[in-house]
């Protein structure tokens, strides 16, 4: 039977239909795009080839346990689960509950993310749970919560963008990361109103060619200053919506004063973007009301990512765009369930429904749903980078359970993470492939893929979608809900742990009731009727396609304009091959590449990491196209081929982060984090670039 479901990859969650092919290709399916407002029947290369993963010969099909000689042996499920349960129980008894940690993922269904948070708090009793969304959406989430009192990536349906007059897109290469999305940019492009801010002339930046808009090629990490400059111009030219500021926001006056100090020429000196372009963009944004401001990871993955996203929100507020039909601010969520994954308790400081774990009322409510005393729920834990820093430290984490994440590729400073993992008493990885992190594990548990499971995902627009089973998983493969149920039973955990996604969803809905991300009016059954379910969705309501039309989520209903300022400019000179490294994605690959590198068609198209270098920079360093080069800093060295392109700034290099081993971009990134969000600095890394042959010659 064909199953109507959604793509396994990114947050656009393109609708697809999977049809099992029991005769021609047992264990797999054929895929077709399905008409839906987000993708309108289209799929990108990743979606079209996603079924290759189902019957991949590399699939893990039985539980594996590392042996004394370092090899893995297949074991039975009871043996594997007993081993995990005994080890974590003894660790808890000897070293305390916080010696066991959980690392989740933004690709897990809402049901799994919810159950994982509950399992950590109740079955393990640990506060140490966080997830890879910390590396993805945390800054935008923090900025959204601070400004609006709520964090939903796009507070409006994606198709609202079709009518836009102007779209300012900062730090997002959607043409490569979620290609079907660019259909929603077509209207703004036709009207000449697509503005892309990126240090690269990326595929998305090229969409501004031929009069479709303008590309601002700002220096890496200068978005905050650029946004202050645009805000300055809006105030200066009398383009601010003063009535809106007075009736719907607080803090505008302090912002006006502080941005008074960022006149265009001063901004030009810090960003490399001419004052004339800044003025043109500010005027364009203020022309009518059909303007949207969208941010991506290029803006947010910085130690000042929260403040930078806040500056984008401030600009949107000053223009009066937010909470009005036909205009707005949004952040482009990355991972498949990056939205739902950040709402239901995977975050270290959070309980289901986007509740704060430190809020007594929230604890009371959730404890009641869980059937426990609020006092048994641990307090806030540590955000991802700090959690990983604790691995093997005295009094730190000794056992780690990893779900839907490949931390030795995706975390900053991966060599440090690798050393931390090596010190653990127990590393358990749930995955369907032998990812680089699974390869380091003591126990690897094979789990179901998207086409083999039921559940829900919440897309980048805050719409709750049904994931449906198209075919049976291989015999010895289990769902994570079942694994958590079995482990909870062995650990004697309080509360219920159903392995039925519909039942877990109903519990999630109750736990989220009255929270910011309220799913309480939803069920699998209701979702199966095909309703467009945007949260918050209280019982009897029709959901909330557009947030903020009447009020923001702060108690007084007003948006907060938080005055932000850049750190003093202390950029060290870039000379002699010292360049700024930025990282990002390719069309063909997704996240750490654990899946897409195993799809032959995608791997053929992009088999290895290539670092993008400007030809003039390469010429100065004696580097030719296709040559092997080395990028180094104090944390390590990446070796990969050079790809010369005039599309990148001459002082910047770009490396995709989908690759492992010596090609892993995160060998070079550092563990410094944003003080508000815990986001690492991924996109402003100093590296030295040399031709690889030259290293040999020098040595």
């Amino acid at each position, binding site marked *: 039977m064909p199953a109507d479901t959604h793509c396994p990859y990114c947050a656009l969650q393109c609708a697809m239909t999977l049809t099992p092919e029991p005769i021609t290709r047992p264990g797999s399916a054929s895929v077709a795009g399905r008409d839906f407002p987000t993708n309108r029947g*289209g799929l990108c*290369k990743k979606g079209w080839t996603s079924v290759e993963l189902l019957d991949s010969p590399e699939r893990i099909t039985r539980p594996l346990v590392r042996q004394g000689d370092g090899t893995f042996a297949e074991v039975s499920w009871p043996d594997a689960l007993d081993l995990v349960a005994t080890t974590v129980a003894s660790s808890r008894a000897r070293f305390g509950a916080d010696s066991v940690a959980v690392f989740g993922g933004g690709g897990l269904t809402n049901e799994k993310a919810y159950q994982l948070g509950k399992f950590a708090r109740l079955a393990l009793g640990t506060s140490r749970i966080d997830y890879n969304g910390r590396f993805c959406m945390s800054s935008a989430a923090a900025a959204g919560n601070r400004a609006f009192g709520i964090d939903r990536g796009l507070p409006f349906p994606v198709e609202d963008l079709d009518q836009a007059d102007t779209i300012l897109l900062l730090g997002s290469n959607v043409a490569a990361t979620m290609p079907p999305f660019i259909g929603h940019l077509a209207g703004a492009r036709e009207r000449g109103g697509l503005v892309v801010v990126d240090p690269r002339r990326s595929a998305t930046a090229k969409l501004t060619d031929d009069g479709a808009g303008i590309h601002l090629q700002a220096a890496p990490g200068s978005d905050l200053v650029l946004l202050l400059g645009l805000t300055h111009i809006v105030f*200066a030219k009398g383009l601010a919506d003063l009535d809106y500021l007075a009736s719907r926001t607080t803090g505008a006056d302090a912002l006006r*004063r502080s941005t008074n100090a960022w006149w265009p020429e001063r901004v030009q000196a810090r960003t*490399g973007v001419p*004052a004339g372009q800044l003025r043109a963009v500010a005027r364009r944004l203020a022309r009518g009301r059909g303007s949207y401001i969208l941010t991506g990871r290029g803006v947010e993955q910085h130690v000042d990512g929260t403040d930078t996203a806040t500056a984008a929100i401030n600009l949107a507020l000053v223009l009066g765009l937010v909470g009005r039909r036909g205009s707005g601010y949004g952040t482009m969520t990355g991972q498949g369930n990056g939205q739902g994954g950040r709402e239901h308790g995977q975050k270290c400081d959070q309980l289901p429904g986007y509740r704060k774990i430190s809020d007594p009322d929230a604890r009371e409510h959730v404890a009641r749903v869980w059937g426990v005393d609020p006092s048994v729920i641990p307090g806030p834990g540590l955000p991802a980078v700090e959690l990983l820093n604790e691995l093997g430290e005295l009094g730190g984490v000794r056992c780690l359970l990893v779900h839907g994440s490949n931390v030795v590729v995706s975390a900053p400073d991966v060599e440090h993470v690798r050393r931390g993992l090596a010190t653990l008493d127990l590393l358990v990885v749930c995955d369907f492939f032998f990812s680089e992190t699974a390869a380091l594990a003591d126990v690897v548990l094979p789990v179901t893929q998207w086409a083999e499971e039921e559940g829900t995902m919440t897309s980048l627009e805050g719409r709750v979608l049904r994931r449906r089973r198209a075919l049976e998983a291989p015999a010895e493969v289990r769902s994570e809900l079942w694994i958590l149920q079995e482990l909870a039973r062995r650990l004697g955990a309080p509360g219920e742990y159903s392995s039925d996604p519909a039942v877990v969803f109903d519990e999630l809905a109750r736990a989220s009731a009255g929270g910011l991300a309220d799913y309480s009016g939803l069920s699998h059954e209701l979702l199966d009727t095909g309703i467009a379910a945007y949260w918050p969705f209280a019982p009897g309501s029709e959901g909330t396609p557009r947030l903020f039309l009447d009020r923001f989520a702060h108690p007084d209903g007003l948006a907060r304009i938080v005055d932000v300022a850049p750190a003093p400019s202390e950029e060290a000179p870039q000379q002699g091959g010292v360049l700024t490294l930025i990282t990002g994605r390719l069309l063909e690959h997704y996240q750490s590449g654990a899946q897409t590198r195993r799809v032959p068609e995608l791997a053929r198209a992009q088999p290895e990491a290539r670092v993008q270098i400007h030809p*003039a920079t390469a010429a100065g360093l004696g580097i030719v196209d296709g040559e092997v080069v080395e990028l180094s800093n104090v944390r390590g060295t990446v070796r990969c081929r050079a790809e010369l392109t005039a599309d990148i700034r001459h002082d910047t290099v770009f490396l995709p982060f989908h690759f492992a081993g010596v090609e892993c971009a995160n060998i070079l990134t550092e563990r410094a984090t944003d003080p508000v969000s815990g986001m690492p600095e991924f996109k402003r890394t100093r590296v030295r670039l040399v031709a690889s042959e030259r290293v040999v010659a020098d040595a």
Partner: protein
Amino acid sequence: MREHEGAGAPPMHVVLVGFGPVGARFVEELLDAVRSGVVRLTVLGAEAHDPYNRVLLAEYAVGRAERERLDLLDTAAAVRAGVDVRLGEIAAAIDRERQEVRLASGGSVRYDRLVLATGARANVPTLVGLEGARRERGAAPDRGRVTGAGSADTGGGPDISRGAAAAAVLDSGRSPLPPGVVVLRDLADAEVVRSAIHDSRRVVVLGAGVLGMELALAVAEQGAEVVVVHHGDIPMARNLDRGGGRLLSRAARSAGVAVVAHARAETLLLRDGRKGERRFDALGCADGKVIPGDLLVLSCGVGARTELAEGAGLAVAAGILVDEELRSWTDPDVFAIGDCAQVADPAAGADGVRSGVIRMPGAPSGLIGPGWRQADWLARTFASEATALERPPLLPPERPAVVMLKAEGVDVVSGGDISAELWDEEPAGHADSCRREITQWADPARGSYLKLITRGGVVEGFVSVGLARAGAELTLLFERGSEVPSDRSVLLRLDAAGEPVTASDPLAPDATVCWCNGVSVQSVVDAGAAGDGSVACVSAATRAGTGCGGCKGRIAEILASAALVAARPLAAPFAG
């Protein structure tokens, strides 16, 4: 220096003289320390206004910006935090022995630390008719005059408040500027210019430095008649070379600014005004030229306000001499920041001071950036001392300044030392790797000009006119001390009319047609040839067009042109 006592001691009392943009930044950065009670802060501001951003004064003066745009500090919030702000209050003298500032209005304020942020005043040139208005160097603020009536009816402007009058007195000479003549230094001046432009009068700007040019361009943009008068060959001669200056002149003229070069202004010609006052009529030049107008704006540079320091016996050269910690050479409890401060090494300068010939680096730049950095640093240092925290690291020496003309549609920026000419030889002694290199591009007909002076690939000086992106990029590289691309033409190509930088043929075989599925032109052509040549068959074979669908039109175009190419051999015999 007397160390401030730690916990339990009374709060350190800081007195700030001067409440311009630099003083305001200092207050802002010290607010937390004031709130927490470890620092007491008293501010003496000569003007009656809250501090405002002088950098944007010209825009206000021409009516391009509203008054709110000049706001910097929320003074009410500062007062709520506990800062004692006294507006319209002039510091008349410093008694360093008793650590007191005497006020022009009588009374005095004691200090533990004194910070001078007195800024600079506009120079009044030597012109016949302006003798009395020129300020004698070192003249002390005069109490008698301060309390007197408003002294400057500057011709048709709005009423000037007591504070503004007091501030004006700070800078005026024995007699006020005649009506119709202003410098553009404070809000009161700006009001005069604003009303003149509003009445569409003819404005004469004397001096073509960056401020003079900005004002003239802004006036022209507002539709008033304006003429800039300067000596020498080119405007902005301190910042531009001949090529850049010539182009700026041309750009200014086409923007509606009349430019009179090689003019040596000598005389102020006056006429009777409506109220019988003798007011500005025209500027007389040495060569006999007479330049008439209704308003003369003097834009002849600025000089540090140092008289308070001099009167107190503090070492002064072009500005108040301070060491790298911004502390007066003479008194460890006195500091200076911003346009009144000259940062120089006391050891290097001691000889000069003794001999009375004081010429040394570190003279105030007149730019806001260094002043703000000094204010930030000094405030953080005071706060750290008062709370026994670690001091911030010393400020790095200021890099040579970048000067950017703030004008819409005229892109002029320069930085560093631009004196070297294209074929100049350097004295021997430099290794090849760090020899000076000069790059130049000039296209006067299209209004673009670039000169770039580098050493070891790092910019020492540059001029960029009419090249918006190259200018912006060079500013960034110069301020960071980063290398320029080895192929200098990369910079020029940033402004190439037909972006993309590397013009790629959209029909080249390897050009991407379908972004969603990464399908090339060649793949589309091949799939079309293998199938029935329809878009649908190409989509089925390659998935091109099956993502966002935006490329279906292009696929059809490619198929059509491929079909033409395929058809051509048949047509060839008839074409011959």
